[in-house]
């Protein structure tokens, strides 16, 4: 998941569709995010490149909508409903995910095992 400055980012992504769950008056997705361009990337335990300021999934609540949809801890979120997540602040990411008028969020996430799986399948 490293990038070359100036070149478009390429990654093997998985499409995950999460249906929001209504709990009281909140719509929850069932996971926690960390990271952002206004955060300290060195403290991110999931990133390979410690200068990566992207949004990472830090926790997935068990039996929540995210886990059901196949989201895993440590995934890097690349897009949410078509909006880019690689260069956003933490708050902007939260807002994109918790829009009240959307029931479904479609994420593009990437993880290391995806790339390895693709490579193995190609060989």
């Amino acid at each position, binding site marked *: 998941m490293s990038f070359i400055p100036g070149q478009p980012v390429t990654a093997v992504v998985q499409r995950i569709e999460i249906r929001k769950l209504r709990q009281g008056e909140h719509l*929850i*997705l069932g*996971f*926690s*995010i*960390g*990271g*952002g361009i*206004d*955060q*300290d990337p*060195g*403290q*991110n335990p999931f990133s390979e490149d410690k200068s990566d300021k992207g949004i990472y999934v*830090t*926790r997935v*609540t068990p039996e929540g909508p995210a886990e059901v949809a196949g989201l895993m801890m440590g995934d890097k979120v690349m897009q949410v409903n078509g909006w880019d997540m690689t260069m956003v602040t*933490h708050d902007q990411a*939260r807002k994109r*995910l*918790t829009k009240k008028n959307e029931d479904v969020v479609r994420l593009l996430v990437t993880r290391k095992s995806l790339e390895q799986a693709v490579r193995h399948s190609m060989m």
Partner: protein
Amino acid sequence: MLEEGRGCWSWSLPDFPLEMALIDKAGAECGGARVAFKIDPRQLAASANLLSELRLPPDKTAHKLPLRLPAAKPSNLREALGQSPGRKDLVAMDTESTYSGYSYYSGRSRGSHRHGERSRDHHKSRSKDGSRSEKSVTINAPPAEPLLGDSSVLGEEVQDDNWGETTTAVTGTSEHSLSQEDIVRITKDMEDSVGLDCRRYLTLTLAVVLGLLVFLTPLAFLALPHLLWPEKLQVCGTACEGLFISVAFKLLILLLAVWALFFRAPRAGLPRVFVFRALLAVLVLLFVVSYWLFYGVRILDSQDENYQGIVQYAVSLVDALLFIHYLAIVLLELRQLQPAFSVCVTRSTDGETRHYNLGQLSIQRAALAIIENYYRDFSVHNPALLTASKSRAAKHLAGLKVYNVDGEFPATPATGPGNNAATGLAHSQSRAMIAAAARRRDTSHNELYYEEAEHERRVRKRKARLVVAVEEAFTHIKRMQEEEQKKAPGDVMDPREAAQAIFPSMARSLQKYLRTTRQQHCHSMESIQQHLAFCITNNMTPKAFLESYLTPGPTLQYGRERWLARQWTLVSEASVTSGLKEGAIFLIKCIDFSLVVTAKRIPYIQLSEEFIDPKSHKFVLRLQSETSV
């Protein structure tokens, strides 16, 4: 066989192969309450019987015989046994000797308990390392007075004349066997005092003569025209008289300045003349002489009438002398203040090292500065602490002897080939010794380790007892308040009496502690009581009182006889009036030890600057938030 002498009696029992040194009953007229046995390992059971017979409590922790015999007179016993008297070896090297100076009761150091140790003695007594296995048990009869018995050597010699006859002379080094060194010291003192006084008076007279010359010259310049040609002289006008005032004040300042710089009591005597002072004196002399020459030729001979010119000439002389005095201040006082060299001073006996920063000095002045710092910084030289390593060294030497089996004796070096053979033989011998020493299984490190651990434990135990005893002693004394003074005038003591009152309760533990740390010759009973009175007067705590005994202090803290202030010798390959250089090495020798001094130049320091704008101090928080969605 009872021999009596002055209340002390020694007896020998022909059935028991024991040599008794001295038995002292309580009532120590003989100045010591010590009994030393030498147990012949063949008759150990007999010795045990004798101990029980005497009914004296064996003191298992006393180790050293305080050797108070600078002149060992052989006793009748020894002569009867046919021993050779007066051996001064530290460690008996051969197996026939039955006396050892210091022999530690190092049962625990072997790791074996005390019962088994005697049998080991039995086996080892015939070995070459006989010194290591010789045992002596020291028994302390209960002393009549808790004194530090070995306060001074001379005092005890005066007390007991018969002591030498009734004791068995014990050989070995003692801290009082400085008789040889005492002699050296006395002769050196005598030489120094005569030579030094002569030189001091010489320099003093020269300085006084020069000073008078310098002081009287301007006055002479001013007075001579009035004396020799008063009628031809012009009248001194206002400007001229103003110059008189200036001459007067400048002369006064010069007088005070010369007194301040040159006429002080010298605080040290240096081996060679002080080069800068000598140069300055020569300069001043030349200067004054040249002024006199000019005066004599141009003014006296021609009898100049311009008195103002003469006065101005005298004023210029005084000005120039003040400038020379300024030069003297810079050369003598200021030049050495800026640090230029870092010297490393090591004491040769125990390796204690200090570093000092000195300016540009000659070697002798640097040595003086170092000695003054030595008196402040180095702990006092204690020869008693060095005996352990000496005995170890002696044991190493005693271990091997080289025998020449082939029967070739190195002949007196006559011709070339003969010489080579002799040296070759010596080389091969030494190499053989070194190889053998490397190969043999040497367990002396084991001994050292256990001895040191044991000593450490002993010191700590004694220290604990001492601290408790002193604290308890201090509780018996209370400072009397003003009101109480009016009420109860009886039984009031001044500090000295108070010290004497509480001293006996702590004396024994203090004495034992000093014995264990081998400082007992540094402190006499008188000095301890004085220190105690001093501490009581100044409201010091017991810990403050003990501090001077727990750690060895600088040399000046102890009595004058430890100062050795007149016995320093400077040993240097370079001339002692030359300046310090990078890598200069010289020795400052005292009688007992020497200070090895190495000088290094302080490096040239390049300091650079970095400017930080105060507005550039900005900070951000390192965040890592986690939000649940």
